[in-house]
């Protein structure tokens, strides 16, 4: 025992002890408020549990019910994947496009950069309320704009077929945010002489973009794709504030279904099982992206 303690503390006993003491507030916080809930949620996912009463162990019944009996599990998963598939490329390429525009050598560019960044600092709840009005089929800004050009506006959030596209459209509000800034930094990090080389060879803007820009920023693009997918899988606030899942459950996203199960129905066991399944799905999607990236991402420093 004594030797084990010696081994852990090493030769600088006192310093190590002091170091551990300094780490202690964080470590205790992590163990109590981080690790313990994570471990318990795994256990509760195997139980019927509503916080107020004792948990009842039911094995894999929650997972079985989710996968085979709950139509809203699949519905919400489909809604979420729809959102991920449309939102991720649009937001990545939207930000890249904006970054390319703002990467020009023009007077007053910092002002434009600021203007495009400002919308992204608005909080999700405020944004949802603003867009609720913009999407209003009769008086909303969007349909009024469409009507100006003689186009009939859709019902947006009032329609089961337009509600998801509406939320994807709304998410593009933040194309000018942090993601765009990172892309801008990446674009500015590309050495000018590479572009000059293309010019000497007689290549146009597309060749420059395809053979210089894209390969050199591909690690950043990849990183953001992974992050955007994970982030989009957790879509919640918009649906919670704006549609509450409707109409006809067309905006019932995975996390909204999870929220309903946990904080409305108090079914913490069932909701924990959902959370663990979402983790597994997210891991699988991320793993798949890493597999794909081997052929699509260029690292200048070699592998």
């Amino acid at each position, binding site marked *: 025992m004594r030797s084990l303690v010696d081994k852990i503390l090493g030769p600088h006993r*006192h310093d190590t002890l*002091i170091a551990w*003491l*300094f780490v*202690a*507030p964080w470590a*205790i916080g992590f163990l109590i408020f981080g690790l313990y809930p994570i471990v318990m949620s795994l256990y509760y996912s195997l139980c*019927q549990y*509503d*916080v*107020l*009463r*004792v948990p*009842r162990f039911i094995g894999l019944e929650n997972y079985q*019910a989710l996968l085979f*009996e709950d*139509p809203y599990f699949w519905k919400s998963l489909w809604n979420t994947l729809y959102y991920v598939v449309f939102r991720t490329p649009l937001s990545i390429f939207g930000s890249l496009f904006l970054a390319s525009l703002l990467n020009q050598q023009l007077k007053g560019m910092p002002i434009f950069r600021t203007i495009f960044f400002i919308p992204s600092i608005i909080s999700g709840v405020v944004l949802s309320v603003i867009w609720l009005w913009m999407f*209003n*089929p*009769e*008086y909303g800004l969007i349909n009024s704009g469409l009507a100006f050009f003689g186009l009939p506006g859709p*019902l947006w*959030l*009032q*329609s*089961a077929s337009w509600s998801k596209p509406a939320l994807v459209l709304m998410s593009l509000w933040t194309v000018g945010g942090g993601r765009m800034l990172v892309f801008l930094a990446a674009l500015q990090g590309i050495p000018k002489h590479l572009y000059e080389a293309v010019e000497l060879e007689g290549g146009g803007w597309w060749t420059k973009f395809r053979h210089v820009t894209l390969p050199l920023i591909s690690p950043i693009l990849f990183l953001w794709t992974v992050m955007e997918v994970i982030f989009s899988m957790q879509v919640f606030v918009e649906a919670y504030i704006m*549609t*509450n*899942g*409707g*109409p*006809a*459950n067309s905006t*019932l996203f995975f996390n909204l279904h999870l929220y*309903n199960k946990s*904080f*409305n*129905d*108090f079914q913490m066991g069932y909701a924990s099982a959902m959370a663990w399944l979402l983790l597994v799905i997210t891991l699988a999607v991320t793993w798949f992206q890493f597999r794909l990236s081997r052929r699509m991402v260029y690292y200048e420093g070699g592998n």
Partner: protein
Amino acid sequence: MREWIIRAGYVVGLGAILAFVFLGAPKEVVYTDGKIHFDYWYNVGQEDVIPWPVIAFNASQDRIVVHPVAIPWQESEKKILTAVISGDPPSLVSQFVPLVKWASRMALRPLDNFITQDNFDTGIFFPALMDEMMYMDRVFGLPQATAAYALYYNKDIFREAGLDPEQPPRTWDELIQAAHAIDSIDADGRIQRMGYLPDWDNLLPSIMQTSLLMAWELGATLLSDDGRTAELDDPRFAKSLQWIVDYYDDYDIKRVRAFRGTFGYDTQHCFISEKVGMFIGSNFIMDNLQRYRPDLDYGVTTIPTHELGGPTASPAGVFWYAIPRNAPEAEAAWEFMAYSTQAEIQLEAMQHTKENLFPSNRIAAQDPIFQDDPYMKIFANQMNHAHSPAVVPLAHEVFWRELNMNAVDLIIDKTKTVQEVLDLANAQVQRELSAALEYQDYVLSIMHFETEEETP
């Protein structure tokens, strides 16, 4: 030596931080006046005032002091939940979500021993409200107040449409006729005004599903007598939902949805902004009409029936008092509850409160202030035909999500038939109910209610 002092200093400093973090909880106040003090958590609506019964009770005797603690209604469920689990709950709470949601989770203390001991008459309450206070043949709360519902109609709009403002519709057929007379559609096909909207909308949660009212009128309860089988597939409910589908057959549903998208709260409420001519709403709407549109000429009438003179039905919106499990001053809290639900206190409270709920005490509702007011009299009468919106108490949230968020949307868009949505909804509600019952049986085999034997 110096180094040692520095090290000791670090340790003491860290210890102090940890102690601050873990022992920093506020100390409980100790009262030395020999009186019983307890906290009462009540919901704050728009008016942040001390409830009148608390003022009256504290002044009426000198043994017990009630400390009212306002909690925002959006947070109240989570706050009560946390307080009960932590084992340090207030002695009294008031709430408006179905009581069974809390009672079935053993978060509340049964009140039967107090009722027996004081010979308290629970018959003073409207039966629909008292029914909602029961779980497993025990009483878990007392109705504090309620929302009462009736049909509002706009007399000016009736006149404009050539209808007699003193002859509001009495049956659902008459309601359709009046509604169609009121409807107004502009040259582009856009709806400007509608007579009536029969279903709830996720942007306008104050509309009650007409289908449920119609099913209640036909005698459907949608739950078996033993509470173990969901009966959403009751043909009477199917008939009522079909009525809604047929109602919308006369409209372009896309136009109706666009029209509904223009509604909002307060001044933009569909009835207050005169976009809808008739509307089933609670008595609170009268306060809002008084505040925002004192000039609006409206009437209140009984919720229509299938046949002339047939039974009407309305929802009840009970606010209740209950004592959380392990409450420190249960006996004193009970004394306050029993006091404040008496007719004279409820009537006094009405005079001292700006935004009024309807009394839960039916003797109070017999008072001239209700019976001599033609509209209040209608609300009082509707309360005798009220039903709890906790239709399937153990699967309450799922029931309403199925109905409001799915079934009605699907049938009015003609994506599914009434029978299809009812089969789907019934399966979901039953699955939830069966799971809740299994869990209940398991819990009751190892946990017990805080019963009369355990209290001194």
